[in-house]
């Protein structure tokens, strides 16, 4: 695990996404092809000036990782949360 990767995890009951902001180039694939519409683009820029996505609707995310498959930059991925984890969240 690279320590220079600043990642933000946003949570939801069933799943969540992890974003490596440094790698993101703002192509919007993850947002457009999220099957539940959980992600949105923000106006926030990474150090290279690319617009970043965010998990705007955490309750919709089921952690299917389709965002992780579409991402051309290996910047984002989804993960399912275990039941216990969901309760804690």
């Amino acid at each position, binding site marked *: *695990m*690279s*320590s220079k*990767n*600043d*990642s*933000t*995890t*946003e*949570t939801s009951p069933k799943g969540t996404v*992890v974003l*490596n902001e*440094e*790698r993101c*180039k*703002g*192509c*919007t*694939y993850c947002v*457009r*092809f999220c099957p539940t519409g959980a992600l949105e683009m923000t106006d926030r820029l990474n150090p290279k000036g*690319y617009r970043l996505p965010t998990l705007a609707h955490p309750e919709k995310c089921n952690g299917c*990782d*389709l965002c*992780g*498959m*579409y*991402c*051309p*930059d*290996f*910047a984002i*991925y989804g993960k399912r949360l275990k039941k216990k984890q969901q309760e804690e969240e």
Partner: protein
Amino acid sequence: MTEIKAHPVDGLLRTDRIPHIWCPGCGVGTSVNCFTRAIEKVGMDLDKLHVVSGIGCTGRVAGYINVDSFHTTHGRALAFATGLSLSRPDSKVVVYSGDGDLTAIGGNHLIHAARRNVDMTVICVNNYTYGMTGGQVTPTTPDKALASTAPFGNYEYTFNVPHLAVSSGATYVARWTVFHVRQLTRAMTKALRHKGFSFIEVLSPCPTLYMRRNKLGAAVNLMEYFKENAVVQDGADTATVGLESGETIIGEFVNVRKPTLKECYEERMSEALGDEFVPYEGDK
């Protein structure tokens, strides 16, 4: 909540070289994403997977996959891979390159590697242009499309790439787009498991040098186009899948088992030479 976490496929990437050089929305990255997942799914011994690329944007793939990999010369990755594959029959050799590299400058090597049924997988990312050199016309550029060397629109006939591969003798041939990530990953899985010459054409956006010049919007627009318009026709006669029709026919077109080059060689020599034949086993 902040967490330091690597991408699930980081283990298969040379992470010390990421972020990669590809433009925002370039489909090559998504195809590589699918490829790494296919490698995982097949559960390959990474010491027995070798990636060979030619030159161009897709030609850079060899430099990002964390296996023994070669970034060779323009169009000739297939010939290099032929020597490597013959010498390492237990390994899977993958040629990962672009449409210009494989169908223009490498066209002769493509048809002959397919004809010989060399045991290798070819991933051909077709983004309709030469990206690395600035958006020139390729054998796959659509009719009338603009390119830096076709400033008034392309007027040459376009290659039907899957048909070219099938006609030449490829034994697994599929076409997907980078929108179809699950299907593409599955096809790559099958190609990696296939014994013989497997070929996947991957239709992919080049937002910077193809789409912008042709006023096709952002990369995601071509992805949407693939989503809305691509028609899956498994087993389609490849003579009918040319993109010039305006239809984007995708799917698994051919999947047959035929003796590979190495197998043919060994059969012929055993028959001709009997006990005198000593099979080639590389450096073993």
